[in-house]
């Protein structure tokens, strides 16, 4: 629900400030908290109130958490003494311009169930700490949403950023609308709108965002969560008839698999066929059969589901051909234009950033030739010096496009290239190990499959990821005899995803060594 409210507001005894309305605004620097604050003061004055606002603007504001504070009371002709900062448990309206800032307000005691109307935008502006983790570092939003419901007297919470952007405005307008719609201030809608008009710039867009947000807060209409457009598992596909027939045959092979696996298998199959060809898809299903052979219904085919996922990811390794292929597709052009918000006929120059090294070139050579060069460091370095540099390729130009298009044309020969040989060997070893352990220690087998998640990135990043993978996998023999071996392997993997250098992983490995 967009609006969540308690039954009644208890009365505060003894407190002389009951006639003062206290409003705190928590925002991320750059969100326009100052504009919102000015509007709140103006709407108060327009309604015969005395108001005062303060802030702690300064360099601390640059992209960091900021706070603004407003107090107001009906004007009686005498000057009231207002406070310059909010107090815990003494805030009537808390406006949070971002979900985690709402969480911060709750932590700071500015949101209390006896009185605080919390107007919070549910969208996220990720903090640096959430973005830099090699894994998924995003904070737990539902947890904060739950806390917001528990901590506030009334909660008005929906994506106000989206409303603002859709209206061509900024979030201060939709926050102002939600504040008005929450009914927490005794002012009419018109006076808010007049305030926006009087402020001058971008009035029409601001009023649009204000209006949508106002209605939403007023009616408490449920946020239309974008129904997860979970990609169609049986995708629409086009191509030559012969290929389509083969595709249908592969898809019907999927239908013979246990129910639990089918969805993931369809997605995996699509991914590998899209990457290479139908024969590759067939190989994928063969491998999946091997997983099913060591699996059973008692475990809900958990091992096979993970196999369906990670086999596909392992078979679709990232090489030059793949990148060139993806970047020259029609679908890519469409997506790029959509993301940049330009029409199909707009003139747009596109620069791609490549930095190939001799390692990648070797990987793209026929396996024997690639090995020959790799075994000769001097020769390798000779080429590396000429190849290893940044290349900016303009794919809107014919020359640049053709270069990538030609590289992508190597696809049919991929199986004979060095990189493929290396990847295949790696895959086979990992997959075999997983199957073997699954027989004796099912959970461990599953977790071994999941360790494939560690391998990602290109170049150095890829090398670092691989070294993490091998370090985690190195603990498998130690864990195999343990009943909780799978759980330990999971912990190792999670630790490996916490930081780049693998410090957390080192610590976790030490713990495992003492088991």
């Amino acid at each position, binding site marked *: 629900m967009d609006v969540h409210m308690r039954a009644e507001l208890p009365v505060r005894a003894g407190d002389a400030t009951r006639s003062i309305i206290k409003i705190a605004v928590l925002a991320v620097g750059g969100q326009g908290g100052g504009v919102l604050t000015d509007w709140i003061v103006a709407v108060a004055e327009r309604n015969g109130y005395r108001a005062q606002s303060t802030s702690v603007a300064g360099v601390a504001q640059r992209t960091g958490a900021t706070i603004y504070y407003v107090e107001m009371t009906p004007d009686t002709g005498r000057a009231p003494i207002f406070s310059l900062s909010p107090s815990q448990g003494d805030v009537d309206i808390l406006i949070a311009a971002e979900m985690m800032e709402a969480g911060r307000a709750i932590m700071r005691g500015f949101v209390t169930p006896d009185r605080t109307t919390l107007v919070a935008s549910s969208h996220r502006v990720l903090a640096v700490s959430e973005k830099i983790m090699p894994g998924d570092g995003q904070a737990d939003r539902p947890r904060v949403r739950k806390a917001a419901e528990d901590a506030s007297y009334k909660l008005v919470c929906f994506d106000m950023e989206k409303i603002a952007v859709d209206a061509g405005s900024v979030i201060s307008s939709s926050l102002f609308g939600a504040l008005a719609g929450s009914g927490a201030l005794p002012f009419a809608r018109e006076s808010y709108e007049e305030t926006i008009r009087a402020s001058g710039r971008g009035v029409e867009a601001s009023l649009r965002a204000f209006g949508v947000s106002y209605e939403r807060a007023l009616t408490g209409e449920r946020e239309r969560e974008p129904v997860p457009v979970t990609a169609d598992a049986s995708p629409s596909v086009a191509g030559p008839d012969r290929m389509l027939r083969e595709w249908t045959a592969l898809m019907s092979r999927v239908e013979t698999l246990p129910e639990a696996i089918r969805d993931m298998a369809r997605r995996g199959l699509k991914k590998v066929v899209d990457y290479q060809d139908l024969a590759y898809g067939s190989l994928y299903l063969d491998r999946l059969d091997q997983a099913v052979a060591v699996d059973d219904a008692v475990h809900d085919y958990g091992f096979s589901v993970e196999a369906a996922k990670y086999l596909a990811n392992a078979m679709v390794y990232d090489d030059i051909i793949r990148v060139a292929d993806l970047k020259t597709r029609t679908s890519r052009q469409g*997506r790029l234009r959509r993301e940049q918000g330009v029409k199909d006929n707009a003139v747009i120059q596109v620069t791609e950033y490549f930095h190939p090294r001799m390692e990648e070139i070797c990987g793209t050579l026929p396996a024997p030739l690639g090995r020959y060069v790799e075994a000769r460091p001097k020769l390798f370095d000779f080429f590396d010096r000429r190849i290893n540099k940044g290349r900016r390729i303009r794919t809107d130009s014919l020359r640049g496009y053709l270069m990538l298009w030609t590289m992508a044309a190597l696809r049919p020969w991929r199986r004979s290239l060095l990189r493929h040989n290396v990847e295949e060997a790696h895959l086979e070893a990992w997959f075999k190990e997983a199957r073997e352990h699954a027989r004796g220690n099912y959970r461990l087998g599953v977790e071994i499959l999941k360790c494939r998640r560690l391998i990602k990135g290109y170049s150095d990043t890829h090398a670092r990821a691989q070294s993490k993978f091998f370090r985690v996998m190195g603990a498998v023999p130690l864990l195999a005899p343990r009943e909780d071996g799978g759980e330990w392997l999971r912990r190792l993997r999670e630790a490996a995803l916490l930081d780049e250098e693998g410090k957390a992983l080192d610590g976790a490995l030490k713990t495992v060594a003492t088991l």
Partner: protein
Amino acid sequence: MAERSFASEVKKLRMGEGETFHGEGILAITKALLENGVGYVGGYQGAPISHLMDVLADAQEILGELGVHFEASASEATAAAMLAASVHYPIRGAVTFKSTVGTNVASDALANLASGGVTGGALVIVGEDYGEGSSIMQERSHAFAMKSQIWLLDPRPNLPSIVDAVRHGFEMSEASNTPVMLQVRIRCCHVHGAFTAKDNRRPEMTVADALDNPRRDTARIVLPPASFLHEHEKINKRLPAALDYIRRNRLNEMFGTQEADVGIVLQGGMYNSVMRSLQRLGLADIYGETQVPLYVLNVTYPLVNDEFLAFCEGKKAVLVVEEGQPDYIEQALGSMLYKAGRTTRLVGKGPLPMAGEYTGQVMTDGIRAFLADHASELLPSRGRAPNLPPLPQAAAGLGDVVPARPPGFCTGCPERPIFAATKLVENELGRHHIASDIGCHLFSIMPPFELGATTMGYGLGPASASAFNSKSARRRSISFVGDGGFWHNGLTSSIGNAVFNGNDGVIVIVDNYYSAATGGQDILSSRADNKTKSTKHPIADAVRGMGVKWVRQLDRTYDVGKMRDTLKEALTTSERGPKVIVASSECMLNRQRREKPVIASAMKSGKRVVKPRFGVDEDVCTGDHACIRLSGCPSLSVKKLDDPLRDDPVASIDQSCVGCGNCGEVADAAVLCPSFYRADVVHNPSGFERFAARLRKRVIGFLQHRRESRRLTFAEG
């Protein structure tokens, strides 16, 4: 030029007698200066007083009409030294800076000024950057006032009071021949309120008058024997004159019934917080009628002995509300009571904490505890309760969920690539001792860069690495200094020092064309045309003039590869002496403010405009986030794909990207991945461009169709 235009603020400075001024506290002070016939104003920008400087810089016309000289001083020391104009001449002067950091820098000049004394009113407006939102060490300005005998005003934080304080500051300064410090806290500077304006006044003597009629008096110069006489004069003449002025004009205020047998003595700046606590305890109404007597020290130095003792008369106990430490006021008041043989209990630090900001909760808890001990009959039943209900259960454990959000580099900041390059160099050559400085570039100490070990003061980055000058070490130190700090004093204290002492370290001067962290004011090396200031003095020239032989000027910090190679060369060259890299690119915040309207109008008028923005190919990105660990840009975030095959969120660039280039450069220099692309959208392309684009599109379309008709193509989604 500065980040914003202050035209509407400047208009407010023109208000005349009887008009109601609405605006920020710091602007009210600016207006009050003009109303009180100030002859000259100087200062150094910094939160929370930047606004005063910015507005006056834009108010040249008014200042010219009134004959007021204004300048943006090179440093706080320069600003304080400027007050020398009030030593011999009856000209009112005011300077302003951030405190305590600015006062630290200014203290040499302030001490000299205070010794000789002044003839014209000399006002030092210090923006006390203490508590929430502060970016500096937590100290008090109070000690500076005491040690140099400068009077310290700490008025109640509302516009009429601070405007009054400006007038009293000048008059008291003149009455006692002593400079006066007017202390205003962050929130007071930014509080929006109103006061009744007066006409602006032309100074009785302008600086031009003084220049044409020079005066001197050896007795006012700090050199023996005069300096010994100054000390006696301070005690025998100036202090009594000041105390007399405070008493006569009732600068300190008493509120509430004097009947009660307890009372509160407070700094003027604490008044609203104390009042709020009393209001919440039911002991005062919202207009300030209080049942607990208050003695408000609008002057916190000097203290008025007899006034205080009179307040304590008949009181069992008195609470001192004095924010910060040491508790200078409490100690002084205690000594007064003791010497007078009084039995009134003095309470202060105890129920109130010694350290930290007096937030609403801290203040209420402190006052409640004091009253519970000494006047429990005053407390209504609710107020007597020991504590407010604990934080709601909802907050439990949120600390583990809600991420910290420290300040960081803005979108497209030109300093980001400098630190990305530094991180790359460290990956290659190992970790180095890195000395940081004050300015936006100090954000390098935060994730994702986490570079820099110390910060010792503005312009002192390289100076703070001066001990690390060893011929036997295999590594060199790296130190950073901003253009602001460089001109403030870094040229001599950092660069000159390094040349003179043969320091072998690497010095990176971060030049973003402005004093950016304080609001984008122009400085000597700014590239903008400035009507009233002389700009465009290259830093590299100054550095060479100082005697540095190894200087590299980089004019595009976004070239991460070049930045990295230059740093590497500096760290490894066999050349002796300091290696100075001047890394220059315009502050993106200011550049956007400058360019956005120009571009918008160009686009509107049909001119060809190319707008760059970056994007990420989500199917190429593997979700490792190595790029973010070399960026931290607000516009570069991550998003979870709706694909069960993918575990980790992929990088994603939002609409706010300004196309600075860091993403692509880093991907290239660090050999990350090919998922970034740069899209230059051509607005209003020429006819030929359109034609060529159509042609290319047709050929590319043919190639695409050819390939895609021979393979299976899956619909996206």
